[in-house]
């Protein structure tokens, strides 16, 4: 771990205003102020953010606000990304999102087991709590616009590659294809520029990651169909999202029906059986058949979802955030919030390490962002990993999972940890009861499973 304990007594002139966690920021400033060289000619630090999704937009905004000269490169400004589109409540507050960005507020979720046992979740939600469903193109555009108004330069282009610096504090040269709308859709002109650091926010198939040799990760394929269903059926999904679990729907993930602005998204995903994704999709459609009957498929989309972080997330003064780094939780596959948050945290670390853009950053400053992110969210990721391992391994475990979800305490804990991203330790007596109930459910489901094997229909 990086030496955060090197608290040097600061001359007050070097103390920057605290960003994020105040004490740590001051320590960061101390270290940066002590060791990294001031930028020549009083110029500001230049950082390229590759990718304009939630991670890129949040990073560019935080960088620009912190006094760093930022260039945000995005290849498709109106990119309509295939995505569940669910954001937790804390994202709305932490990122000051306007409420009209949220198309729908999901307050009820239905979990459906392999044998169609349906459990309603959401009884414990307070009236002001909800899961926000957004359209990605709207959210991404909003964050980019905010970055632009904070001072970042937003460029429409496709990142090609970068060249490593020739000497210790030399610049990176970023090569990209510049698209100019005035030229029409002709293939863009090659341009390049120099930056001091690169933030790779270009998603699951990140080119920056490839360039820096970050390594690969396992990924799931999420396949989704957008279905426009008749209005009376849409009423059912007014505030409700559904999750289907079962071997027929996915061997290691879940199928879903999420409401969007005026249609629903029906989809499923898998890591291990990617070739069978169409079969799983058909099964998901079958399970929701009555509720989406008469609907028209208006769009079919698929995208990869990382399962775990890349082996290397920083190299030199190049770092990864968001899906490019692999910050997607297991079990629920949530990534938007972590992308935006990691973008922001990375930017804050750069701002602090460069003393608001006046000094050069180093790899150690970028590693501070990694350390902070890992420290803050590791419990969340680990808990979700354990849940996935325990409850997604077989139909019996899924039945037990759905049964457990009927419990009020479970619902409260789940929503607390999802909406506010904190793992709250509950009442220990309730925890013990929960543990006993979990084991009971699993034992019963496994016992039934053994009975099922003896049944020949």
């Amino acid at each position, binding site marked *: 771990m990086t030496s955060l304990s090197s608290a040097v007594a600061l001359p007050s002139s070097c103390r920057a205003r605290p960003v994020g966690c105040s004490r740590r920021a001051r320590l960061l400033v101390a270290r940066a102020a002590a060791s990294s060289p001031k930028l020549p000619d009083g110029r500001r630090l230049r950082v390229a953010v590759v990718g304009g999704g939630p991670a890129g937009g949040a990073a560019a905004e935080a960088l620009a606000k912190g006094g760093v000269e930022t260039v945000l490169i995005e290849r498709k400004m109106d990119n309509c*990304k295939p995505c569940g589109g669910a954001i937790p409540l804390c994202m709305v507050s932490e990122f000051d999102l306007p409420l009209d960005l949220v198309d729908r507020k999901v307050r009820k979720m239905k979990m459906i087991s*392999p044998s169609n*046992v349906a459990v309603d979740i959401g009884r414990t939600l307070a009236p002001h709590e909800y899961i926000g469903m957004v359209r990605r193109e709207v959210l991404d555009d909003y964050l980019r616009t905010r970055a632009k108004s904070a001072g970042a330069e937003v460029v429409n282009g496709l990142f090609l590659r970068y060249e490593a610096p020739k000497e210790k504090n030399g610049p990176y040269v970023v090569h990209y294809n510049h698209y100019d709308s005035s030229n029409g859709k002709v293939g863009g002109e090659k341009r390049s520029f120099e930056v001091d650091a690169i933030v790779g926010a270009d*998603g699951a198939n990140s080119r920056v990651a490839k360039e820096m040799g970050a390594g690969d990760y396992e990924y799931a394929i999420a396949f989704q169909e957008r279905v426009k269903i008749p209005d009376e059926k849409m009423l059912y999904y007014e505030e409700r999202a559904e999750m289907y679990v079962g071997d027929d729907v996915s061997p290691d993930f879940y199928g879903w029906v999420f409401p969007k602005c005026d249609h629903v998204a029906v989809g499923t995903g898998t890591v291990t059986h990617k070739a069978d994704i169409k*079969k799983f999709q058909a*099964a998901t459609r079958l399970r929701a058949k009555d509720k989406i009957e*008469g609907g028209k498929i208006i769009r079919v*989309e698929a*995208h990869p979802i990382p399962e775990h972080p890349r082996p290397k997330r920083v190299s030199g003064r190049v770092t990864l955030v968001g899906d490019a780094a692999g910050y997607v939780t297991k079990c629920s596959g949530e990534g938007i919030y972590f992308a935006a948050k990691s973008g922001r945290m990375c930017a804050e670390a750069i701002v602090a390490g460069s003393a608001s853009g006046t000094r050069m950053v180093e790899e150690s400053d970028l590693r501070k962002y990694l350390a902070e992110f890992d420290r803050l969210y590791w419990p969340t990721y680990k808990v979700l990993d354990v849940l996935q391992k325990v409850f997604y391994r077989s139909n019996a475990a899924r*039945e037990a999972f759905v049964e457990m979800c009927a419990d009020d305490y479970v619902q409260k804990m789940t929503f607390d940890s999802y909406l506010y991203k904190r793992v709250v330790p509950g009442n220990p007596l309730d925890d013990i009861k929960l543990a006993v109930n979990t084991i009971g459910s699993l034992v019963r489901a496994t016992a039934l499973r053994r009975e099922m094997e003896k049944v020949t229909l």
Partner: protein
Amino acid sequence: MPRHVSFFSPRHPEKKEARGPAPKSGTRPRLTQSHYPLLSLTLRSKPSREGIDSFLSVMAMATSTFSPRPASRTAPLKPLQAGAKPHLHLSFPRLRAGRLARAAAGEAPVEVVEAPPKEAEPSPAASNGAAVKAEAPAKAVEAAPPLPRFRDERWVNGTWDLRQFEKGGVVDWDAVIDAEARRRKWLEDCPEATNTDEAVVFDTSIIPWWAWMKRFHLPEAEKLNGRAAMVGFFMAYFVDSLTGVGLVDQMGNFFCKTLLFVAVAGVLLIRKNEDLDSLKKIIDETTFYDKQWQATWQDDSPPAAPK
């Protein structure tokens, strides 16, 4: 009608007494073992309960009016099975033959009976989230031909009607467990669309803990205790023959007590041959995710000259 269900009573198919009321002729032929010896292998043996007959005949009549099933299903067997119950019977040859018969009858997976709407092939890894345009911009979600739905007289309003399981005034929990196992098996083989009007609300926790204990834990516990006793006896004999220390003196020795602990733990954890591998896998699995997260710190050479 008193139904005699004893947990340990042997259930021999040959011992089937004559059924009560004759089945309604003209509907389902009653497949008794004497008439169809091969098919009888696929039928689970009828439990020797009297009241089951009238129930079965009613079921047979009801199921004969079902909508035609896809030919790939084993049609003759299904209606009869609708009322019969699985039960705890260690007749492995019968079960294996049952599976073979099912496979022979060409049981098709679920997808065959559906008519999946046609979509364009997605190119998932080409770019982040390739949105694939369907070949026709708007296609209707075609209704698949109806699949046989799960039907059972005792399954009412999305849960088991416990009053119908009553036997002598008390609920027969074994029958409830059997029925639920059968329902889950049916739905696993033949997934159904969910229906908000007939939402399933059954929760296995309504079956009391002692019913689960009696049915599942006790036989397993008996087996494991037996194993532990046999291993213990031979270990004690072995140690005695090697060292001359008698059983009582062994119990005072720390090493022997450790051996005993290891023997008991081994019997508990390793019940099948495969358990050894699965234990190792579980130990790897618990730390794998952590390792993936730590990977970026592994090559943490001091941040010298950047690339």
